[in-house]
């Protein structure tokens, strides 16, 4: 007997091409049946999904959960709670913790925390020891132990020699290398986009070239290696074009975009707004247009929040001294809708594809059956009310940090039900309650 039956939702499963109204029955943590007009009587719980979109559980391949070492900012359990509230059933956390996730010991610690968390938590491991960029981490062993990708995120791998070694070692594992593209010499002391707002605020500017130069270098280095190379959080038009050309040349290059880079410009930093201080920085309207165009034409295949909680005492520092980053998990879905669907760049099925199977493929989660709705596969599903109107507020955020520039924003669309392995981990079924 199914434990959960979700009826009459528009079921979108980009991996199989399904897009139509159907019922989905869940039993023993797995998807039992997907069909129209299923019998409701034997079900444990029936949820009326009419008017909603039922999708594979959303996946965010780039979040910061701060544990170990940054528990004053956030925890794995707290981040996972934020994830399910935002409709995500799986997240991949970055290794810039203390210590970095560069050893089997720390990887196992993260896995142990993940086991008791609300969603699936996978770890992207550091490519170099301590993320210092000098000595390779045990990449093969980390991959065997479950690391779903490699990155020194927060820092670029600066040395060409080390980077070439990291690409080769990562290629051997079949995982993707995810690069944080920031030339350190070009961004010393920089705290926001090089432009008018930066000039009048007396800050040090962060040029687009600090990003493009690294992508160009890596594409060149990787040409002979052939690792799956993924550019994290693209911020500017020129970067999109480099990725577009690389993909056109058949190179194994992919890229992601984040909600804030798809919606906000450097103007958000006016008045030294530390909640708009981002790495890479918010740029200009033409960059937003280029990023949306990159999503529309398939250059950008992954969406990632770069969820980066920080404590109040850190974000209340002077702009130049405050840390980079904002939280994103609870607010991503309506922001993607606004940036990509409402703007006409893509339609809902493609948005769901970017947030599910594409992210799963990047991190090898598709091999576990994640990112798709398959009978017999894991019952990770998200029910989305695409038209629910709500206002992002302090109460939106699950964990201790609320560092978001979107507080107060009116938005549309939210996850009303998040199911992980058949268990309901989040529900806010005001309208859809059966």
């Amino acid at each position: 007997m199914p434990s959960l039956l979700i009826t009459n939702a528009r079921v979108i499963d980009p991996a199989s091409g399904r897009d139509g109204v159907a019922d989905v029955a869940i039993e023993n943590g797995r998807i039992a049946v997907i069909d129209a007009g299923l019998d409701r009587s034997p079900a444990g719980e029936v949820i009326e999904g009419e008017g909603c979109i039922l999708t594979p559980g959303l996946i965010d391949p780039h979040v910061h959960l701060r544990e170990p070492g940054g528990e004053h900012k956030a925890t794995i359990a707290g981040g996972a709670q934020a994830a399910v509230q935002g409709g995500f059933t799986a997240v991949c956390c970055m290794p810039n913790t203390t210590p970095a996730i560069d050893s089997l010991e720390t990887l196992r610690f993260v896995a142990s925390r993940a086991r008791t968390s609300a969603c699936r938590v996978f770890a992207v491991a550091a490519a170099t020891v301590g993320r210092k960029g000098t000595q390779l981490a045990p990449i093969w062993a980390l991959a065997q132990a479950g690391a779903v990708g490699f990155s020194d995120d927060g820092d670029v791998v600066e040395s060409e020699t080390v980077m070439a070694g990291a690409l080769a070692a990562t290629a051997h594992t079949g995982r993707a290398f995810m690069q944080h593209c920031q030339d350190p010499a070009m961004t010393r002391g920089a705290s926001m986009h090089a432009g008018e707002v930066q000039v009048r605020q007396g800050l040090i500017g962060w040029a687009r070239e600090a990003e493009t130069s690294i992508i160009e270098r890596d594409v060149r280095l990787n040409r002979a290696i052939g690792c799956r190379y993924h550019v994290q959080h693209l911020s500017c038009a020129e970067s999109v074009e480099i990725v577009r050309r690389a993909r056109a040349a058949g190179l194994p290059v992919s890229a992601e975009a984040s909600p804030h880079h798809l919606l906000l410009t450097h103007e958000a930093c006016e008045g030294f707004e530390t909640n708009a201080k981002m790495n890479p920085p918010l740029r200009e309207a033409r960059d937003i247009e280029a990023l949306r165009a990159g999503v529309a034409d398939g250059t950008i295949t992954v969406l990632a929040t770069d969820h980066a909680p920080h404590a109040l005492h850190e974000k209340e520092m002077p702009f130049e001294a405050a840390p980079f980053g904002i939280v994103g998990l609870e607010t991503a879905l309506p922001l993607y809708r606004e940036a990509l669907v409402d703007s006409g760049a893509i339609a809902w099925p493609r948005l769901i594809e970017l947030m599910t199977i594409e992210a799963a493929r990047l991190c090898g989660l598709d091999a576990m059956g994640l990112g798709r709705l398959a009978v017999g596969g894991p019952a990770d599903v998200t029910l989305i009310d695409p038209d629910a109107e709500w206002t992002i507020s302090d109460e939106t955020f699950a964990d201790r940090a609320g560092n978001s520039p979107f507080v107060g924003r009116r938005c549309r669309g939210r996850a009303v039900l998040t199911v992980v392995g058949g268990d309901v981990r989040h529900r806010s079924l005001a309208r859809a309650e059966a």
Partner: protein
Amino acid sequence: MTIAEAMRVSETEGKGECTRGLVGLRGMPAESMRTILTRARDLLAEPQNVALDVARGRAVGLAFLEPSTRTRGSFSLAAQRLGAMVVDVSTNSSASKGESIAETVRTLEAMGIDAIVVRSAYSGAAVSAQRASEAPIINAGDGRHEHPTQGLLDTLSLAEALGRDAAFDLAGVRVLIVGDIVASRVARSAVAALTTLGAHVTLVGPDRLAPDDLTTLAQGLAITRDFDAAIATNPDAVMMLRVQFERHADPGVVQAGYRDAFGLTTERARRLHQGAIVMHPGPTNPGVEIDQAVALGRVKSVRVLVRRQVRCGVAVRMAVLERALGIS
């Protein structure tokens, strides 16, 4: 207040003009500037050896989290001449990293301090302080951002020297600001004050120190790399800026030949027209941006205001403190 509320700040807060504090001059209406300048001019005329009593019983806090001697002394004297008590919690130690400016001003506010003067090496520090404090914050310099009392004192000394201190209308006045503009909070505040009051300002410097995008700081702002050509246009005043070696990541930002191209040498000073005004916020790098003989007034054809600027500084800070304390 919740965390997210505390992290946000209303549109108008911390922008100087809407509070009694003074975070910056950019965006401040001309009338507000003229009110402060007029009061400062009147204070200059008061006998120096008589302390005013207008701020008796009030307390002014000084939190200079970056090394300062001159500005800190000037504010301290200004507060005491108004009759206020001064609490100085300045430090160059851990707080100079900027972590605790919000905590520092909260502590001062809890003591019952009425107005708080802050300085920090970080751009945006004064805004952070204002967000943390109900008491008015006066920015005594935040990184490369603004140094509003310096901008006002520069304007006061210039207007006084030009006989424009009745109405503080600087229409038609032509000023060169020369040197390390990109790293200069003094330049940002001076540009805001001078252009708001009608002066025509030209920035002069090499592209590393005066990049073209600085013209976006104000309407009508010009920029040139040719100091000699700029001098040939007979400006009314030349404001020389200190090269701020400490604010540049690249120690080679000033190349050999800087003095030849952008220094106010004795020879160049002589080419300024009779009675032209020379200013410098101090401290100078003698032999870099200005020759000591010029700074000390040995070139008799020009009027050097360096010491008068310091004197005007006390008066401006008294006026700004009066405003912050709600006295004037």
